[in-house]
């Protein structure tokens, strides 16, 4: 019993081998490969085999189109780069010539052969094998038609940071409805906490708050603050999202946002959220003056009334009687066509690096704490002082890469810390004239006007020491430098260990994925990379889309970014969504699974396997069925079906098995490789 019997023997295949300039031709003998295919794959149905300098060029594509006409080919194989780069290109060419685009197959002889193989002969042999595999596979291809689904025109944006706000405004301005969901009482995100923004040094609040209020008042934007996503169902164009609106204990329809309740509330609470533990707030509060919406929330855990049952100060003084102490969480359901996740980031917990003394040494601060300290509206009204709240710092050490670029914590570069640290250096200089030491591994100032800013900071006489700080020690222990902190570091540019006394240390802590990113990813059915950030559909060519149709990502949710980058991603995601909405109806990749009811025995083995709940069981017919729009095409059910009743179009058993046979049909030449080894 053999497998390759699905299509008739007389298919006509055209093989096209790309030089990619010298990228492929430099290592693989493309002429030999083409010739070999022409001669040896005849019984496989190969009628033409050609090589060309650049297959992806218009000329290369033309070549294919003409051959399809002339030689009336019904299958095409392009041996070139990775399909992830040019599959669409060549499918386009094929369909322009009137063939079904899915009758084209690529062999990645650049990424998988020429670029990774040193020996030419070995590379050429492997290239032949891959062509043989592709030909064998394409013989089994069948025309596929994509599936069409309608698109609901409203959109859910999760996360009210600058990226989320930007995305919402873009979509709203193009006339479509947006739900902007935020976990905190106000939108604004981390940017609202910052003081100045590099490199232009304009104050964060001044540029952010107008956007916030615009979003707050926009007729197409519905704000859902103090809310969290409970559950997500559906697929591109038709998502159903369940949202929990947490009890605010304030009736937003009555509240005027006058703030009297906050004045009168007797309970002082350390503000771990907005003031990152450096300042105080009341039990009923808006996180900051310009909060949007301006309605406060009541923090149940700290409220005297919820502790003791008495107080009600807020209630007494609230003129419109907006305080609603019996308020309850509310569950609402949204129907949206697309989702943009702009869920942002968490800051690295500096306590994980005890040798830097954060939490033990009073005058070690984190960058976010320092942002608040510098902020005129912050706990010190912008004064740069030691933990005691009055003594100004005379010398400040700023440590870069805290928790970043370190395999024990986060191996990646947090991208913003260099500029942020330089900004701090400038602010300290500007406001206190204190000595500033920046300890860096590499100075990364690669964006418009960033290096100019670096120059400026150099000019101000900041001490830049190239070296990763080893430890921060309390000078009082020895060295008679009581109260001072000693930064021990190797100054790698002079190759000596230095021990530098300072009054204040700022740790430029890195960015990390939200601690609940895993849940979010699971809820929305998207994946995360090794470091926990959401994965883009393509890191370069499709940075705001995800692998799941209709779910987009923007800002730091996909990795560390500065404000300009986050904003442009917000806009980009919005643009993608709007283009979907305007198409009203969308076609999905036809790589889907379907079940042959005749063969299905209803054993229900596949039923539990689908993470997208695309497989259902028909109790009457006693067979399982796949919901085409829900199916994402992973093929797990195909592989798992004991009866072989499930077919995964685009990756059928026949296709894969044929490709395996083809790949292995070209033997490996020991002598060739022996030569390589020698």
């Amino acid at each position, binding site marked *: 019993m053999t497998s390759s019997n699905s299509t008739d023997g007389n298919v006509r295949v055209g093989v096209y081998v790309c030089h990619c300039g010298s990228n492929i031709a430099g290592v693989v003998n493309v002429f030999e490969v083409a010739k070999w295919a022409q001669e040896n794959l005849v019984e496989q149905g190969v009628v033409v085999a050609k090589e060309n300098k650049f297959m992806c060029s218009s000329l290369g594509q033309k070549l294919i189109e003409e051959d399809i006409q002339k030689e009336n080919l019904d299958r095409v194989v392009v041996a070139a780069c990775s399909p992830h780069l040019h599959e669409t290109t060549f499918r386009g060419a094929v369909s322009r010539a009137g063939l079904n685009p899915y009758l084209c197959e690529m062999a990645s002889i650049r990424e998988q052969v020429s670029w990774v193989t040193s020996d030419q002969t070995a590379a050429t042999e492997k290239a032949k094998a891959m062509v043989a595999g592709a030909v064998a596979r394409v013989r089994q291809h069948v025309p596929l038609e994509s599936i069409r689904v309608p698109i609901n025109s409203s959109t859910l944006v999760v996360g009210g940071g600058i990226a989320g706000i930007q995305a919402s405004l873009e979509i709203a301005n193009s006339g479509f409805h947006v739900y902007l969901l935020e976990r905190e009482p106000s939108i604004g995100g981390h940017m609202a906490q910052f003081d100045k923004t590099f490199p232009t040094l304009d104050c964060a609040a001044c540029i952010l708050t107008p956007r916030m209020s615009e979003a707050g008042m926009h007729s197409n934007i519905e704000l859902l603050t103090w809310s969290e996503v409970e559950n997500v169902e559906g697929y591109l164009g038709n998502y159903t999202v369940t949202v929990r609106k947490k009890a605010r204990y304030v009736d937003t329809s009555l509240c005027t946002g006058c703030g009297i309740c906050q004045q009168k509330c007797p309970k002082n609470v350390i503000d771990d959220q907005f003031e990152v533990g450096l300042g105080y707030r009341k039990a009923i509060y808006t996180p900051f003056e310009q909060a949007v919406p301006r309605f406060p929330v009541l923090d149940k855990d700290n409220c005297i009334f919820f502790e003791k049952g008495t107080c009600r100060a807020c209630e007494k003084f609230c003129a419109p009687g907006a305080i609603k102490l019996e308020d309850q969480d509310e569950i609402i359901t949204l129907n949206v066509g697309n989702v943009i996740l702009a869920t942002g980031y968490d800051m690295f917990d500096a306590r994980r690096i005890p040798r830097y003394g954060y939490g033990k040494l009073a005058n070690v601060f984190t960058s976010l704490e320092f942002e608040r300290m510098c902020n005129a509206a912050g706990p010190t009204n912008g004064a740069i002082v030691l933990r005691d709240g009055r003594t100004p710092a005379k010398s400040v050490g700023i440590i870069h890469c805290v928790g970043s670029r370190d395999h024990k914590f986060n191996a990646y570069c947090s991208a913003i810390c260099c500029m942020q640290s330089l900004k701090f250096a400038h602010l300290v200089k500007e406001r206190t004239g204190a000595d500033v030491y920046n300890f860096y591994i590499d100075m990364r100032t690669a964006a418009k006007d960033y290096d100019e800013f670096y120059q400026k900071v150099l000019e101000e006489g900041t001490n830049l020491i190239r*070296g*990763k700080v080893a430890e921060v020690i309390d000078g009082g222990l020895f060295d008679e430098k009581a109260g001072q902190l000693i930064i021990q570091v*190797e100054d790698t540019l002079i190759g000596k260990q230095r021990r530098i006394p300072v009054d204040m240390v700022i740790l430029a802590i890195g960015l990390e994925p939200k601690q609940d990113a895993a849940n979010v990813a699971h809820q929305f059915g998207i994946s995360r990379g090794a470091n926990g950030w959401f994965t883009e559909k393509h890191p370069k060519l499709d940075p705001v889309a995800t692998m799941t149709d209709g779910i987009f990502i923007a800002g730091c949710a996909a990795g560390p970014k500065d404000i300009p980058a986050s904003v442009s991603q917000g806009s980009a995601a919005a643009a993608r969504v709007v283009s979907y909405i305007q198409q009203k109806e969308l076609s999905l990749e036809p790589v889907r699974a379907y079940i042959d009811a005749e063969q299905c025995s209803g054993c229900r083995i596949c039923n539990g396997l689908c993470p997208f709940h695309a497989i259902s069981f028909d109790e009457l017919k006693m067979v399982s069925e796949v919901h085409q729009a829900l199916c994402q095409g992973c093929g797990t059910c195909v592989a798992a079906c004991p009866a072989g009743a499930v077919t995964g179009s685009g990756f059928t058993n026949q296709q894969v098995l044929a490709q395996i046979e083809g790949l292995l049909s070209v033997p490996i030449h020991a002598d060739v490789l022996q030569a390589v080894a020698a």
Partner: protein
Amino acid sequence: MASGSPVPQEKVGKASPPPRTPPSQAAVLEFFRAISPGLPQIEFCIQCGSCGGSCPAAALLDHTPRRLFALIRAGEMEDVLQSNTPWYCVSCYFCMVRCPQEIHITDLMYGLKTLAYQRGYTKNNKATHLSKVFAGYIERYGRSFELGIAARHYLRHPPSNLVGTAKMGSAMFFKGRLHLRPERINGLTQLQKILERARELETAL
């Protein structure tokens, strides 16, 4: 300076070095895999200086560890083997646990010591002498012998404060913390056989 490694002190003032292509990195790495167990990861050094910053003996070093690695990769083995750095390593392992690239720095220091020693770069080097004396007792008795080691070592390299050291020694002795003669293990010949065979199996360095 193409390699980015600083010009070693003794070269200062001389004419600029003749053009020399650095050695194949692969070969260098292979070599260090050979002299250090596991994967030493030396190729991952980003020259951040966590090692030099953490080193308790930093003040004495002519090259900090990361600089040694740069020299190695630049093919300046002469400077590396003459360097005192490995010999001042007291195996505190701070550099190793703090290295953001998880390079086995301390292990590499051992490797460099053996290399320098076996290639005869360590004439009248205090640390080498101490190690040799120590090793001598192990090979002769199978155990170390503090009194003997101290005596022999100080004979060659008298301590800066002889009186103090002597006082401490006697105190130790009277508190029964120093034995007069070494302990010898029973399986001594066996141990010597093993060590002998091991020396044959030593990677040619």
